[in-house]
């Protein structure tokens, strides 16, 4: 089955390999630059974009700040509409609930709509362990699943693969999972899509159970919304008899009207379309029989670190995320490091603030993610719900180096400063001391200037990280303050 993120090295190490991979860099550069320009065009069509963005932000903030109330309202509405609501505190519990629900139907396979939440909890692997085969039906997820690979992008999980690689995966792997790819398959995207259509159609037509996530859940009506392009979502949401949706608790919006904001901002931010090809909306099992809503509907509400994130007043804004992936597409670090380096199903800038909050900063990869950014701010600019990603990154850096109070699994704990930052901390303290004593700073500057002809252009030790690819600037004969003292000394203020 697909690979796992466990035991990932820290971001810089993983990114180093990606930066050196010319094919990967070419694939990512091509894809992200294509979508960047398209998104900008789609957004510029709406003169009120700033107002929509602000409204989206406020709707999400308000919902998060009253989440208990809206969760209960949603539960009531879904139950009244014939659905069953389950609550899962963590990944293990969510996986157990889904496995039991599938087993109760007597089926041993499910079709899946692309869903970040089920990726996050490792549902496919958990079902496999229970003897249940989960088939991914989104084209990109299919590419990842067939390739025994990991997703590297929120919207386009196989963005790291080019058409030639995809053709090779289809040719060599499709047969083991069902209908094989045609012998003469070329790398034209239209032919590849056609091969996926034929391969998956037999699975859709026979499926009895489907598993999905949801983009939005409307508290007042109990309506769930899935936004997609290919029609695999519609197949899964309408043909099977039983539908199980695993959804993060932060996906709620209070009212039906609120969709008018997100159905305008999400498609333009993610696929750069005025509207995505298909959007499905259903409310419990209402309409089952006359319309063909599945006869049984189960909603699994997932915490898995979200309430811990909610407890952080700076970090909780990450829960506004609507998973559009605009921040990935515009990020210069993502473009060069690729999605896998982030060691999570949530890559890119949003992943760098989400993973260390959902999972904590205990592992090497999670403690390194807040630093996986030059803080250039392009992510914040494009975010349709105005998540200030640089602000949260800096906040999480503070958590790593200073430790402090955090909430883990619902309990307040005090983190110790992370290991491995001792030398840096000493430098920062020393610099603070020098900067607090202008005389000392001046003495240091003078000493450096006077010894400048002995300075090397490259550095040993940790400084090599700089000088391996960049020359050091030459030190001037004297710092500015000495020049000022010589030339303007008499009229110095204070």
């Amino acid at each position: 089955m697909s690979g796992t993120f466990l035991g990932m090295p820290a971001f810089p190490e993983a990114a180093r390999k990606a930066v050196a991979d010319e094919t990967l860099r070419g694939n990512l550069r091509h894809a992200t630059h294509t979508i960047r320009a398209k998104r900008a065009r789609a957004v510029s069509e709406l003169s009120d974009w700033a107002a929509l963005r602000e409204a989206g932000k406020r709707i999400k903030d308000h919902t998060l700040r009253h989440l208990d109330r809206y969760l209960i309202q949603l539960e009531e509405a879904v139950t009244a509409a014939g659905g069953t609501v389950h609550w899962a505190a963590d990944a293990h519990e969510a996986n157990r609930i889904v496995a039991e629900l599938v087993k109760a139907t007597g089926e041993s396979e499910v079709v899946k709509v692309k869903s970040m939440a089920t990726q996050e909890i490792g549902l496919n692997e958990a079902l496999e362990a229970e003897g249940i085969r989960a088939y991914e039906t989104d084209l990109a997820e299919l590419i990842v699943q067939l390739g025994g690979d990991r997703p590297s992008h929120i919207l386009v999980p196989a963005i790291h693969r080019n058409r030639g690689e995809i053709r090779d995966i289809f040719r060599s792997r499709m047969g083991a999972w069902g209908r094989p790819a045609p012998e003469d398959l070329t790398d034209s995207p239209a032919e590849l899509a056609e091969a996926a259509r034929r391969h998956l159609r037999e699975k859709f037509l026979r499926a009895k159970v489907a598993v999905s996530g949801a983009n939005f859940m409307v508290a007042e009506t109990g309506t769930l919304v899935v936004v997609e392009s290919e029609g695999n979502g519609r197949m899964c949401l309408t043909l099977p008899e039983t539908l199980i949706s695993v959804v993060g608790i932060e996906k709620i919006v209070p009212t039906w009207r609120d969709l008018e904001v997100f159905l305008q901002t999400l498609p333009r931010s993610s696929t750069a379309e005025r509207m995505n090809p298909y959007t499905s909306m259903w409310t419990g099992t209402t309409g089952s029989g006359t319309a063909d809503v599945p006869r049984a509907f189960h909603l699994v509400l997932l915490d898995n670190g979200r309430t811990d994130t909610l407890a952080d007043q700076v970090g909780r804004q990450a829960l506004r995320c609507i998973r559009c992936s605009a921040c990935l597409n515009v990020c210069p670090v993502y473009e060069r490091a690729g999605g896998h380096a982030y060691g999570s199903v949530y890559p890119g800038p949003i992943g760098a603030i989400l993973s260390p909050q959902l999972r904590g900063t205990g592992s090497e990869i999670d403690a390194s993610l807040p630093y996986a950014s030059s803080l250039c701010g392009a992510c914040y600019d494009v975010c349709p719900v105005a998540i200030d990603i640089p602000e949260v990154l800096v906040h999480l850096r503070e958590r790593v180096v200073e430790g402090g109070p955090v909430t883990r699994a619902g309990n307040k704990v005090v983190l110790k400063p992370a290991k491995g930052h001792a030398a840096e901390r000493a430098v920062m303290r020393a610099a603070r001391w020098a900067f607090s004593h202008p005389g000392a700073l001046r003495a240091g500057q003078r000493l450096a200037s006077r010894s400048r002809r002995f300075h090397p252009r490259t550095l040993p030790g940790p400084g090599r990280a700089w000088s391996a690819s960049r020359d050091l600037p030459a030190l001037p004969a004297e710092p500015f303050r000495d020049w000022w003292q010589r030339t303007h000394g008499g009229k110095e203020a204070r």
Partner: protein
Amino acid sequence: MRVALFLTCVNDTLYPDTGRAVVRLLTRLGVEVDFPPAQTCCGQAHYNTGYRHDAEPLAVQFSDVFRGYEAIVTPSGSCAAMVRELYPRMGERARAEGRGDALAATVAPVAAKTYELTEFLVDVLGVTDVGAYYPHPVTYHPTCHGLRSLRLGDRPVRLLRAVKGLELIELPGAEECCGFGGTFAVKNADVSSAMGVDKVRNAESTGAEVLCAADNSCLMHLGGTMTRLRVGMRPVHIAEILASTEKEPLV
């Protein structure tokens, strides 16, 4: 008008020419410039690396040093953004941590009157033609803090266009980060270098002799990359171009 030059620790130590250029430029425009010698560092590197509590005393010191001036001008977009955007945020955080309003009250007055150089020229002095002369082909890199925090927009470009003899050539991918990012440059050196190389290659493709920016930190990273790649361009701070005149050209 009496303004304080906040030169920044990097410029003071490594780029005194930029400081001298700002003094010359502002003096030429009739501004009385002072350099309060007790100034050191705004604390940006501390703050952005996660040492907010170590940045706080530096913010207080900054506020003490600069409080008495009508305006504070700095030739660094990122340091201007630190003072204007992040000092007030540090004040809010201190308040949220139950430490009262003292920090917020201390930094508020200086945050409001701190300007990045091009912003000061265009918005406060109301000039775009500063009487400069610089007969070279130049391409301009708008740094991230200038572009997305301070929203400098076309101010720097308007100033450059008014420079006599200067040929301004548009930089492809101008809005992309150069990859410096403070401690990012060493913590994620490989990605940082890759970004720097791409930026330098884009600059090289313009055929310009000079890569101009309003922040020497980015130029230090790009200049170091240029010499390593043996690209025949030089990095020059915008202040030095604007200070250059026919009588006293920048050499």
